C-alpha cells in the first residue's frame, strides 16, 4: 500500500547517524508543520551543518561557554546523599551530581540558547522568540539576546507566569518581552503552540530558539548536540575521578533536553544504564500527570511524532505537574526511540516524592535543586535499594531551585497547617 521507500531496518551503529536524513529516530521525529515553516527548517538545518564544525563558530561558542556560562560544570560527589542511601553492610550507590545548576542563569538551558543565538546571528535574524515553561529556557534566551543585542519575545503560559514569577521578572529585566498565553491550561504546551504561530507569521525575520529536544526536525538533533557538552564533560570527569564510566545516568524528562544532553555521549556504551524520570503529578492513576513515555501513546505534537498524552479521540490531554518544566504532554522523539529500543528506561515520580527530594537534597547537601531536577533525585528512593555493590550514579543536577522556593514554601505551609 505504501509508497514510502524502504529504509534500512538495522539500527545505526553510531549515534552520530541519528536522526536519518528525514529527521527520523526510527519512526519518531519528522516535520509535522505548516508548509510556511518548511523552508525555515531547511535553512536552519543547513546553517547547523555549516557552522557546527566551523572553527570560527566553535571558537566563539567554546570561549563563551567557558567565560560566560562558566563551563565545565563540576561533577560533584554527593557524600551525605551517598551515606543516606548506604546499606547497613556499607555497600551502596556512589552518587555524583553533574552541576548544571551552577551554570550562568542556573540551569543547563543556557548551553543550547547560547549556541542557537550564535546560529541566529549568522543566519542574519534580528528577532528571537522562545517558549518557556519553568522560565529557565526563557531566562537563558533572554540572557543571550541581551548579550548579543537581539530583540526577544518569550511566550509563557499565564499559569506558569504565576508560579515562576521570579523568572518572569528576570526575563523582563534583561529586556525581553514576556507574552502571556491564556489558551488551554496556560502552560508549556500552549506557550509552544503560540511560539510556533509567531514563527509561522514572522519566519522571514525571526529565529525560534526551541528549548527542548522536541519540535520538528532539526530541533531535536540541534538541541541535543548543543547539550552534548554535558555528557562529554561527564565522560572526562569520570575518567579523572575513577578511571572509568558511570554505571547509571539519571535525569528528569519533560521534553527531555537535559537527559539527552547527558545520555547522548553514552548511548553507545552498553554498560551504562540510562534512566529518565517523568512527572507523575498527583499520581498516574488520577489522570493528573505528565508521564508521557510511561503512560502516553504515539502521536504528533508540535511538529514531531513521539509519545503523547491524548484521549481516545486524538485530542491532546492537558498534563499536570508541580514542576512547570515537566508539565508537558509530549516528549522529545529520541526519547521515544530509546524507549522503544529498550536502550533507556523511563519511570515516573509524583509531586509529593519530588517535594520530599527537594527538601532532602537541600538538607543533606546544601543544594536546592529545581523542582524538575528534584524528580530525578526522588527516583533514588526506588533505585538505590535495588542496587548491589558500589555502582556510580551520575544525576544531571539540571537546575537550581531558587525559582521554586515560593511555590514550595506555600505547599510546605499548607502541609504544616493541615
Amino acid at each position, binding site marked *: 500500500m505504501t509508497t*514510502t521507500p524502504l529504509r534500512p531496518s538495522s539500527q545505526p551503529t553510531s549515534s552520530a547517524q541519528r536522526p536519518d536524513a528525514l529527521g527520523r529516530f526510527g519512526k519518531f521525529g519528522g516535520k509535522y508543520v505548516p*508548509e510556511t515553516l518548511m523552508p525555515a527548517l531547511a535553512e536552519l538545518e543547513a546553517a547547523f551543518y555549516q557552522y557546527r564544525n566551523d572553527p570560527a563558530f566553535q571558537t566563539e561558542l567554546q570561549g563563551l561557554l567557558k567565560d560566560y556560562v562558566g563551563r565545565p560544570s563540576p561533577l560533584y560527589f554527593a557524600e551525605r546523599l551517598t551515606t543516606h542511601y548506604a546499606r547497613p553492610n556499607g555497600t551502596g550507590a556512589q552518587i555524583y551530581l553533574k552541576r548544571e545548576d551552577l551554570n550562568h542563569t542556573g540551569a543547563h538551558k543556557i548551553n543550547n540558547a547560547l549556541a542557537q543565538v550564535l546560529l541566529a546571528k549568522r543566519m542574519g535574524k534580528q528577532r528571537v522568540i522562545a517558549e518557556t515553561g519553568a522560565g529557565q529556557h526563557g531566562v537563558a534566551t533572554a540572557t543571550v539576546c541581551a548579550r548579543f543585542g537581539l530583540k526577544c519575545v518569550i511566550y509563557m503560559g499565564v499559569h506558569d507566569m504565576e508560579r515562576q514569577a521570579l523568572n518572569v521578572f528576570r526575563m523582563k529585566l534583561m529586556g525581553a518581552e514576556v507574552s502571556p498565553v491564556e489558551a488551554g491550561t496556560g502552560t508549556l504546551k500552549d506557550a509552544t503552540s503560540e511560539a510556533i504561530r509567531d514563527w509561522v507569521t514572522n519566519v522571514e525575520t525571526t529565529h525560534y530558539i526551541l528549548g527542548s529536544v522536541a519540535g520538528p526536525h532539526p530541533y531535536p538533533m540541534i538541541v541535543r548536540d548543543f547539550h552534548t557538552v554535558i555528557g562529554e564533560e561527564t565522560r572526562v570527569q569520570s575518567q579523572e575521578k575513577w578511571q572509568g564510566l558511570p554505571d547509571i545516568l539519571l535525569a528528569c524528562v519533560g521534553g527531555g533536553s537535559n537527559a539527552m544532553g547527558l545520555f547522548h555521549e553514552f548511548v553507545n556504551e552498553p554498560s551504562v544504564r540510562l534512566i529518565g524520570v517523568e512527572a507523575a503529578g498527583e499520581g498516574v492513576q488520577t489522570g493528573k500527570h505528565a508521564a508521557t513515555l510511561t503512560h502516553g501513546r504515539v502521536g504528533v505534537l508540535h511538529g514531531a511524532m513521539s509519545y503523547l498524552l491524548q484521549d481516545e479521540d486524538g485530542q491532546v490531554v492537558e498534563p499536570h505537574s508541580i514542576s512547570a518544566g515537566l508539565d508537558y504532554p509530549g516528549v522529545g522523539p529520541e526519547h521515544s526511540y530509546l524507549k522503544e529500543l529498550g536502550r533507556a528506561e523511563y519511570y515516573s515520580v509524583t509531586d509529593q516524592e519530588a517535594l520530599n527530594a527537594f527538601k532532602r537534597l537541600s538538607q543533606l547537601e546544601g543544594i536546592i535543586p529545581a523542582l524538575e531536577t528534584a524528580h530525578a533525585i526522588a527516583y533514588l528512593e526506588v533505585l538505590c535499594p535495588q542496587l548491589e555493590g558500589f555502582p556510580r550514579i551520575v544525576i544531571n543536577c539540571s537546575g537550581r531551585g531558587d525559582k521554586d522556593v515560593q511555590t514550595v514554601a506555600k505547599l510546605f505551609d499548607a502541609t504544616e497547617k493541615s
Partner: protein
Amino acid sequence: MNSVSECFEHLRSHARCALIPFVTAGDPNLEVTAKALERLDQSGADLIELGVPYSDPLADGPVIQAAATRALQRGTKFEQVLEVVQQVSPRLRSPIILFTYYNPILNRGIDSFLQQIATAGVKGLVVPDLPLEEAEVLLKPAIDHGIELTLLVAPTTPKERLVAIAQQSQGFIYLVSTTGVTGMRAQMESRVKDMILELRSVTDKPIGVGFGISQPEHARQAMEWGADGVIVGSAFVKRLADSSPEKGLQDMADFCRTLKAAIAPN
C-alpha cells in the same frame, strides 16, 4: 455530489471562481453546523471546508482556535462530526472538504480514518500540519478511498518545492496567501499575485487561495489575479459566533451571497 476536481472542472468550464467557505464543526453545536452546511450550500458556496475541532490548532489564528475550543468544551467528537456529514451531504451540491490536523488521523489509523470519512460522504481533505514529505503516507491511500488530499503551498515555498507539491496535490492546490496563521486581515499582500502567476506557470491544477481572505474585495482581488477558488474561514466562523444561532446563520448566508456576487463574472 461531485468530487473536488470535478467541481473545479465544471466551474472552470463556465469561467467561474469557486467560493469555499469554512466552518468549525460543533461551534456553537452540531445541529447549527448541519444547518450552516445547508445554508452555505444554498447561498452560493461551491465547495465547503469543514474544520474538525482540535486541541492544538497550530495553523489557526484566534477566531478559529476559539471556535475549536468551544466545540471541544461542548464535547464534540470526531464520530459525531462525521454523522453530521453523513446526514447532510446527500442534500448538498457542494462537495465537503474536511480540514483536520494530523494527530486525530494517526490516532484512528490512516486506512480506517479514510474509510470512515469516505463512507460519511467527505470528498476532500486538507491537513495543515502535513507538508509534502510527511504527506506521502496519506496520498496514495487517500486515492484508494476516493478522497482527494489537497496540499498547501506558502509564500515561503521555493520554486522547486512548488513544482513537487503541485504535482502531488489532489483536487486543487491550496495557496496560503500570507506567512501566518488563519485569520482576518485588512488587505491582501500584493505578492499573492506573483505567487498565483508562479504557481500557474508550473501547474494546470486549480489554485485555491486562503488564509486572510475576509472581505468581498479580497475575494475579487484573488479572482482577478487568477485564483480558481477563494477560501474564507475566520470571517464566517466569527459571524456565526457573534450572535444567536438564528441570526448567525442568517449573517453567514448573507455574507456568503455577498462574496459570491463579488466573484461573479462581469
